[in-house]
């Protein structure tokens, strides 16, 4: 056997500095992030309000009665409240309803949380000019943003007034099943003035329009219909500042249509102040 030369050194060996494999840290980071995101989903699930069963007609009417009985002094004191003024003046042909009175046209859907928020304000405001009947309680979609926002639906309701006509189209129910279809002229209004496609869309006699909600629906999150009505009776509540502020914006736009009639509503200082802002 031949011997290796004494001068030949052993082959250098690859030796890890650490026993931790290189992939461990990135995988641990990704796993930690997945856990955090899972935690977020858990928080979301835990804090999402559950849909309430709709009230029976008598109970729903009691809530509506609470809304229509809000003191004028409270509405006047709140003014625009925390609502955003989304009203835009337009110059279309004057829009009138079947009885020849100025027409307020609402276009929305029951699943839509922004429509859910805005209906409270519309009901409070229009009830100062006339009377709703047949309003039923419902909630916005359970699977959309601001889920299960408590509200009413205009589907199946009627509104009578000596000052204005009101037409409402709820295109789908809260599960997005088809409900009502706008007429050709109603769709034309939507196409002309709601170019962004946002709902709710409200046209005040082709003099003012707005699209979207004037306050965020999370103001009403987790509340029952009666709880909302009770909160609206408290002028300092977040709900009153948002809903009644929005109602005053709607009221001011309607007052512009009616020539400030009835004067008991339209000549109040807060409505007059908002009317001046409308342009």
């Amino acid at each position: 056997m031949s011997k290796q030369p004494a001068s030949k050194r052993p082959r250098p060996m690859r030796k890890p500095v650490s026993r931790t494999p290189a992939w461990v840290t990135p995988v641990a980071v990704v796993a930690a992030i997945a856990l955090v995101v899972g935690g977020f989903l858990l928080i979301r699930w835990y804090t999402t309000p559950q849909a309430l069963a709709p009230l029976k007609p008598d109970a729903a009417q009691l809530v509506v009665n609470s809304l229509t009985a809000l003191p004028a002094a409270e509405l006047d004191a709140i003014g625009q409240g925390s609502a955003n003024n989304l009203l835009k003046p337009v110059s279309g042909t004057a829009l009138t309803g079947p009885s020849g009175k100025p027409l307020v046209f609402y276009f929305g859907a029951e699943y839509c949380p922004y429509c859910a928020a805005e209906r409270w304000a519309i009901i409070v405001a229009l009830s100062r000019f006339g009377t709703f009947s047949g309003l039923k309680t419902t909630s916005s979609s359970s699977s959309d943003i601001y889920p299960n926002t408590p509200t009413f639906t205009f589907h199946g309701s009627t509104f009578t007034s000596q000052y204005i006509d009101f037409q409402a189209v709820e295109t789908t129910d809260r599960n997005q099943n088809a409900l009502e279809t706008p007429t050709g002229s109603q769709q034309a209004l939507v196409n002309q003035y709601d170019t962004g496609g946002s709902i709710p869309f409200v046209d005040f006699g082709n003099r003012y329009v707005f699209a979207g909600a004037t306050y965020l629906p999370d103001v009403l999150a987790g509340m029952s219909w009666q709880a909302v009505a009770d909160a609206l009776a408290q002028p300092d509540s977040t709900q009153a500042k948002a809903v009644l502020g929005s109602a005053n914006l709607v009221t001011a736009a309607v007052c512009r249509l009616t020539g400030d009639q009835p004067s008991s509503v339209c000549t109040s200082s807060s409505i007059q102040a908002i009317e001046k802002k409308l342009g």
Partner: protein
Amino acid sequence: MRLQLLALLAAVAGLGVSIYLTAVHFAGVQPACPVNAAINCEQVLSSSYGVVAGSSVPTSAAGILWFAVSAALAAVVLLSHSAPLWSRLQLAWSAIGLVTVLFLVYLEIVRLGAVCVWCSVAHALVLLIFLVALPRQRESRVDA
């Protein structure tokens, strides 16, 4: 080095996504995005969190800045053969990005209940850059 090239490509891709979302914001149009119960780009981007707090600057504009710096850092680390100073800077910068992403994901899931696909792509790219920036265990040749 190949990983740094990946970080550079991710930063350039993130830059593209951020520029697209910023352009869409200023053009006043909706981004191309599917809409369902969980995904709604418009809801996220048009929310109060769609702009940098107290300004009208879209959050995606901050993304342009972050990805541009990330691209520059990846390029420098690549050219300097992972000089420790630049590697540490890259790690710190990407950690800031990752913390911000976690906050934005919190807002999407918990506050808004909607996810923006474009934003999620940008978030994934931030995570990828962070993973590349992580210090790696190395093997070295030692004499026995």
